[in-house]
């Protein structure tokens, strides 16, 4: 057996094991888009939540404390608009992610729905759905102040869990989201800022890094 053959064999084993277990068509650009949607959403929330645009942060803290002690200050329509905005961001982000990843997969002659993307979805879905239910229950119980940290923490857990089946970098994004969520929990009243930082800024940063690290090479 030739020397070169052995090394070829070994590198083909390594390559195929990686490609068969990891979904590598995840598009960096979809992260950037998700971040932009999130920032737009956070902007809308900032404008329609009266506490953010009419009173200072100190007053907001007071208002928040009053909420905790039982007084609700949100009008129903504001809550409903926020809920709809959140849903629209979610669907736009997931839709863009699937669309761009499908495009990248086609370029790599892979299908977007393959065993590795199924494993990816399986691993990420449970923490994500649990977090969704958790946040929705908080919403129903009027615990608005803890919704943003909850979203960040559970989303981070979903990313860490799914990272086994795609680029390892996803794990770092997940860990940062969890840390941000916990910090947010310690700073009541600033949830929207943390939310915008985690879902907006981090996504854009992460997506840009991924784009330059993996996607641009493929285009050339």
């Amino acid at each position, binding site marked *: 057996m030739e020397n070169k053959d*052995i090394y070829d064999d070994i590198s083909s*084993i390594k390559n*195929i094991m990686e*490609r*068969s277990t990891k979904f590598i068509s995840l598009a960096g650009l979809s992260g950037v888009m998700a971040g932009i949607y999130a920032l737009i959403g956070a902007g809308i929330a900032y404008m329609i939540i009266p506490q953010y645009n009419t009173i200072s942060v100190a007053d907001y803290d007071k208002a928040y404390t009053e909420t905790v002690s039982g007084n609700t200050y949100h009008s129903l329509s504001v809550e409903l608009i926020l809920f709809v905005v959140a849903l629209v961001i979610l669907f736009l982000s997931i839709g863009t992610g699937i669309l761009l990843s499908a495009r990248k997969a086609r370029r790599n*002659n*892979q*299908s977007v729905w*393959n065993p590795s993307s199924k494993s990816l979805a399986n691993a990420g879905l449970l923490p994500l759905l649990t977090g969704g239910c958790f946040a929705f229950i908080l919403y129903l119980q009027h615990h608005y102040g803890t919704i943003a940290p909850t979203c960040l923490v559970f989303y981070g857990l979903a990313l860490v869990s799914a990272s086994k089946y795609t680029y390892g970098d996803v794990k770092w994004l997940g860990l940062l989201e969890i840390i941000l969520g916990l910090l947010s929990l310690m700073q009541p009243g600033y949830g929207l800022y943390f939310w915008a930082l985690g879902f907006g800024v981090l996504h854009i940063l992460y997506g840009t890094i991924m784009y330059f690290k993996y996607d641009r090479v493929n285009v050339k």
Partner: protein
Amino acid sequence: MLTLNNFDKAFENRIRLQVMSVLVANESYDFNSLKELLATTDGNLASHLKALEKEEYISVNKSFLGRKPNTKYKATEKGTSAFKKHLEALENLIKQQKG
């Protein structure tokens, strides 16, 4: 002279070696995904899968997804240990060359 001890004839072919790599790294894999991953033809892949099946290195599970046949392959214990032995043999060969 290099010794070719423990070299598994079943893995001489690159496709068969790759199929085994996929099945060792994953719980199971279906025919179409294998075909896509290895960029090979139906006939070529089928004949190599047959060969591995004959060696009892892989097990086959045929089912239907709606009307489409969905054939799933798994590495057997025998296949997994044969694959490991083959890797060890490759490793030894490299060591011999270095020493």
